[in-house]
C-alpha cells in the first residue's frame, strides 16, 4: 500500500493509543525508560500533526475512512482547521512529559510511573481522536477515553484526598458522558446515521422535531459540564488542584477544551441541520459572562496557588463560551484562538507552579513569600504567564481578549464587552497578590530561602512555554488568519 497523507490522519490518534499499551512493557525493564519512550511518542505525534497541518494549509482538509467504508456508513476522521487543534495538543504533551520525568520523583510512587505515562498517552490519543472524528459514536468513545484516563490521572499520586477528588470528577463526568450517549442514540433513532454531517443533512431534510432539539440540548449540557462552565464547574477546582502538576496542566489546559470542541460540534450540527440556536446562544453568552466574573471572584479567596489557577480556568472558559455565544466572526475566531492561548498559558502556569511546589515543598501563598528571589527564572515565567492570563498586552491572552471584545462591541453587545474587559480586572487582583508575595515580601520559610532552580528537564519546558506566551502575543495575527476560514464556514452554516 502506498503512503498517503490521508492515511496518516488515522495514525495520529492510533499512534499514542497503541504506544500506551506498550508503556508497561517498557517500564518493566526500567521505569525511567517509560518516560523517555512516552516523550518520543508524543514528539512523533506532534511532528506528524505539524506535518499534516502544513499539508492542510497547502491542500485543504484531509479525510480518511477507517476500514475503507465510505461515509456515511464508515467512520470518518477529518483533519480540517478545527482538527488541526491536535497539533498543539501533541506539542503540549511533548513539553509536559519531560517536565514530569523529574517531577514524578517527588510526588508519585515509582510503581505507578508506568501507569502515569500510559494514561498520559491514552489521554493524548483520546483528545486527538475527539478533535478529528466526525462520527458521533466515536466522539463519545474518544471522550470516554479522555475522561477515564483523566479520572485515573487525578488519583495517580495515590492519596485518599486525590481519590475523593477523582471520584467527584468521575460521578459528574459520567453523567455528562451518558447525556452524550443518549443524544447520540436519539439522533441515530431519528436519522439512522452517525456521521455528523450526514445526520445534519437528514435532519435538515425532515420535519423539525422536538426530539432533535432535545438531542442537541442534552449534547450541549453535557459539553458544558465537560467544559466546567459556571455553575456546572463544581467538580473542577479540587480535581485540578490535587492532581500532580503535569496532570493539572493537561486537565486544565487541554482536557476541559473537550467541552469547547464539543460545543463547536453542536454548533456545526445545529447550523447544518437548520435548527435555530438563538436561545442557546443567549444562554451561552450570559453564562460565559457570569463565569468570567465568578471564576475570578472565587479565585481571589484561594491561598493555594494551584487552586487559584484552577478557578482561573473557570473564568477563562467563560471568555471562550462568551465568544462562541456571540456568534459573530471576530468573537468566534477570538474564542477559538483563546482555546489555544488559554491552553498555552495555563500549561505554563501550572508547570511553573509545579516547579515551585516541587522545589520548595510548599503550595500556599502565605508560605511562598519571597520565592521570586530564590527561583528567579521560574517566577519570571510565572509572572509572564500571569500577565498573559490577565490579558495584558503584548501577551497571548491580549489577542484573544481583544478579538472577543471586538466581536462583542461590533455585535452591539456593549454590556458583554464591558463584562469581558472588566472581568479581567478581577483576575488581576489575585495575580497581583501572587506577584506581591513572590517579589515584594520577605521569605518566612526556610524551604523558600534554601530553594534552588529546578533541573533543566523541568525548567526548559517552562521557559519555552513562557517565551511562547509572549511570541504568540506579538504574532497572534497568524493564529487568527489560520482559524478564520473555519469560523467563516461555521457561521455561514449557522446563518443559513
Amino acid at each position, binding site marked *: 500500500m502506498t503512503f498517503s497523507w490521508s492515511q496518516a490522519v488515522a495514525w495520529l490518534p492510533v499512534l499514542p493509543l497503541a504506544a500506551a499499551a506498550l508503556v508497561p512493557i517498557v517500564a518493566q525493564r526500567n521505569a525511567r525508560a517509560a518516560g523517555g519512550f512516552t516523550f518520543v511518542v508524543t514528539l512523533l505525534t506532534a511532528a506528524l500533526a505539524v506535518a499534516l497541518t502544513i499539508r492542510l494549509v497547502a491542500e485543504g482538509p484531509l479525510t480518511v475512512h477507517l476500514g475503507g467504508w465510505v461515509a456515511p456508513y464508515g467512520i470518518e476522521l477529518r483533519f480540517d482547521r478545527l482538527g488541526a487543534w491536535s497539533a498543539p495538543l501533541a506539542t503540549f504533551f511533548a513539553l509536559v512529559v519531560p517536565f514530569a520525568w523529574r517531577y514524578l520523583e517527588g510526588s508519585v510512587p515509582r510503581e505507578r510511573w508506568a501507569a502515569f505515562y500510559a494514561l498520559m498517552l491514552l489521554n493524548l490519543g483520546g483528545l486527538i481522536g475527539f478533535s478529528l472524528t466526525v462520527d458521533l*459514536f466515536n466522539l463519545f*468513545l474518544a471522550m*470516554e477515553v479522555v*475522561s*477515564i484516563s483523566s*479520572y*485515573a490521572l487525578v*488519583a495517580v499520586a*495515590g*492519596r*485518599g*484526598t486525590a*481519590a*475523593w477528588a*477523582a*471520584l467527584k470528577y*468521575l*460521578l459528574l463526568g*459520567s*453523567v455528562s*458522558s*451518558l447525556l452524550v*450517549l*443518549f443524544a*447520540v*442514540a*436519539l439522533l*441515530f*433513532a431519528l436519522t*439512522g446515521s*452517525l456521521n455528523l454531517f450526514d445526520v445534519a443533512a437528514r435532519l435538515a431534510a425532515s420535519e423539525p422535531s422536538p426530539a432533535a432539539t432535545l438531542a442537541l440540548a442534552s449534547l450541549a449540557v453535557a459539553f458544558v459540564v465537560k467544559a466546567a462552565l459556571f455553575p456546572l464547574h463544581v467538580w473542577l477546582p479540587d480535581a485540578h488542584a490535587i492532581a500532580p502538576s503535569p496532570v493539572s496542566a493537561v486537565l486544565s489546559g487541554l482536557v476541559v477544551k473537550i467541552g469547547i470542541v464539543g460545543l463547536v460540534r453542536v454548533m456545526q450540527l445545529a447550523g447544518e441541520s437548520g435548527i435555530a440556536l438563538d436561545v442557546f446562544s443567549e444562554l451561552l453568552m450570559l453564562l460565559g459572562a457570569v463565569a468570567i466574573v465568578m471564576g475570578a471572584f472565587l479565585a481571589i479567596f484561594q491561598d493555594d496557588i494551584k487552586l487559584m489557577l484552577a478557578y482561573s480556568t473557570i473564568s477563562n472558559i467563560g471568555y471562550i463560551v462568551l465568544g462562541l455565544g456571540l456568534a459573530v466572526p471576530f468573537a468566534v475566531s477570538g474564542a477559538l484562538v483563546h482555546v489555544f492561548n488559554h491552553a498555552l498559558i495555563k500549561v505554563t502556569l501550572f508547570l511553573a507552579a509545579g516547579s515551585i511546589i516541587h522545589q520548595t515543598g510548599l503550595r500556599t501563598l502565605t508560605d511562598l513569600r519571597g520565592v521570586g528571589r530564590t527561583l528567579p527564572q521560574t517566577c519570571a515565567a510565572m509572572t509572564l504567564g500571569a500577565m498573559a492570563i490577565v490579558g495584558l498586552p503584548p501577551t497571548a491572552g491580549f489577542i484573544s481578549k481583544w478579538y472577543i471584545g471586538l466581536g462583542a462591541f461590533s455585535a452591539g453587545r456593549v454590556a458583554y464587552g464591558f463584562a469581558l474587559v472588566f472581568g479581567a480586572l478581577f483576575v488581576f487582583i489575585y495575580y497581583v497578590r501572587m506577584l506581591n508575595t513572590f517579589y515584594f515580601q520577605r521569605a518566612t520559610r526556610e524551604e523558600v530561602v534554601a530553594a534552588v532552580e529546578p533541573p533543566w528537564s523541568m525548567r526548559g519546558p517552562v521557559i519555552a512555554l513562557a517565551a511562547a506566551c509572549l511570541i504568540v502575543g506579538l504574532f497572534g495575527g497568524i493564529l487568527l488568519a489560520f482559524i478564520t476560514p473555519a469560523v467563516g464556514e461555521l457561521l455561514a452554516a449557522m446563518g443559513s
Partner: protein
Amino acid sequence: MVLFGVDVDYLAFVVLFCVGLYMLVRKSNLLKKLLGLNVMETAVFAFLVTAGMIEGADPPIRTAGTGPLFANPIPHAMVLTGIVVAVSVTAVALALIVQIHAHYGTIEVDELKGLP
C-alpha cells in the same frame, strides 16, 4: 404498546433514568451512588437497543432462514461498546472508592465532607 401517546419502551427508559439519577444525587453512600450511575447507563443502553428495533423483524444474523426484515445491527454494536466503557468507568470508580475507604475509613459523603 403506546401509553399517553408515547411508546411504553421509551417511558420505561425515562423512569429507569430518573431512578438512577435519584440514587446518584440523593444517596450518601458512594457505592449506592455508583449503582445509581449504573442504572442510568442501563437506561440509556435500553433506549439505544430499542431504537434499532423493527416490529416483526428477525435478529440481524444472516442465515438461510432470515427474512427480508432484520433489526438494525448498529445499535447492538454501539451498546456492546457502551457496556465496555461503562464497565471501565465502574472499575475505576470502585478502585477509587477502595482508596477512599482505606484513607478516610468511610464511604459516606456526609462524613467525607467534614474531613480534610
